[in-house]
């Protein structure tokens, strides 16, 4: 059972309150992208063995999506961030 900290609710809650929402920060291609680029965007994943950057939604809580860094070999959660903080960094 993962224990996940929700950065919006400010609380650590059990995994069952959350929904896993896949690899985070995948960039959507431009509309004129090739079939290959669209296929990559839709289906291909890094599927890293080690520290992943992934999305979780607090479905049974605030229902917001946020970003979790997790070591998927040990299941240790290393960092939790909001999208706002990530986008803020990227703009700065």
């Amino acid at each position, binding site marked *: *059972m993962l224990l996940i900290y929700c950065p919006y609710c400010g609380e650590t809650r059990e*995994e069952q309150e959350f*929904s896993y929402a*896949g*690899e985070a920060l995948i960039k959507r291609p431009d509309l004129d992208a090739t079939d290959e680029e669209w296929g990559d965007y*839709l289906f*291909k994943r890094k*599927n890293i063995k080690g520290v992943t950057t992934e999305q979780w939604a607090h479905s049974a809580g605030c229902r917001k999506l946020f970003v979790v860094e997790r070591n998927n070999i040990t299941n240790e959660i290393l960092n939790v961030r909001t999208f706002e903080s990530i986008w803020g960094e990227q703009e700065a």
Partner: protein
Amino acid sequence: MKYSWLEIFKKGLDGNKDWPQAWPEVSPKSSYDVLIIGGGGHGLASAYYLARDFPGKRIAVLEKGWIGGGNTGRNTTIVRSNYLWDESANLYEHALKLWEGLTQDINFNVMFSQRGVYNLGHTLQDMRDIERRVNANVLNGIDAEVVSAAELKQRIPIMETGKHVRYPVMGSSFQARAGVARHDAVAWGYARAAAKLGVDIIQNCEVQSMEIEGERIKGVNTSRGYIGADQVGCVTAGNSSVLAKMANIRLPVESHPLQAFVSEPMKPVLDTVVMSNAVHGYVSQSDKGDLVIGAGIDSYTGYAQRGSPHLIDHCAAAIVELFPIFSRARINRQWGGIVDVCPDACPIISPIPQVKGLYFNCGWGTGGFKATPGSGHVFAHTIGQDQPHPLAEPFHIDRFTTGALIDEHGAAGVAH
């Protein structure tokens, strides 16, 4: 040595002391024609059919741990072929036909037991889907029938088919030729049969990187040194993306933990396999007597060979509702394996367009065991002839660019 009743009798006379080793322990040579990475059922089957159907090739299987220590030893051993779409029905039926003669073919008792598989329906929509799938199966020459709830009660008296439960059973599909096999025996049998045909089975040999020159594979660096090869087939299930990364490509798979558990051994109580997608659990009784129960995948990706307990809880609740008699069975062991799930719940059996000589057989997700012989056979031909076997063609990795997916998610059911 050929295993036979006579040998069992003769060896029994002197206390079974001098059975020969099933396959020799070998060190890797400096190069091979074909390397198969991954010594699970699919990899060993691939090596066996390559050696059998393409004699003269120098072949080795590289296994990072021990033979059958990965998902081959962790699945719930169900074998069936009642898939909805033609492409997958043909592939799994090909596998089922090979299963039917496998023990004789590889001279190793894989304990294939065609005890039938029931896929339960709990809603009107489930029943419509079941009728559609049964009709599709029959048109594809696969045995299938629809069974009513009343008939189910006759056939499996211990199953709860009343209407007062949360998800009442309304009927099921039934495939009589489906069943279970002994998972370890499949790995050992293929390893022995392949070794007999000259395949080197190399354990404790982890592939660490690939040597690729000008878009062509040259060999692999392993924990036991460099091994050159003209062709490399990757059959590493949950770790497929790790190998893909070595070749600098990405695969459309994600690795999830899938959990299962077994009860204490008990007297024969369930003589078939019962699966339910709606309440999500599947159960059979092994020859040893323990109930073998499988849960669903964990939602998150991961490489830890264990999952979250609430999935076990959910699955146990479903099984106990279906079989109240099992409520006091004690659970002996619980474990997880890492399964590589494709977006369309169908495998990838394919040459890799970016790297000549490199092939992947992966993406079997939660249901690879049943396909072991068929998977190995069509993959061997895909490598041996350097073009996809006709049954493997629809499972080319290009489908994730063209969009020609084979949508088995939900169609054949998530449970395997």
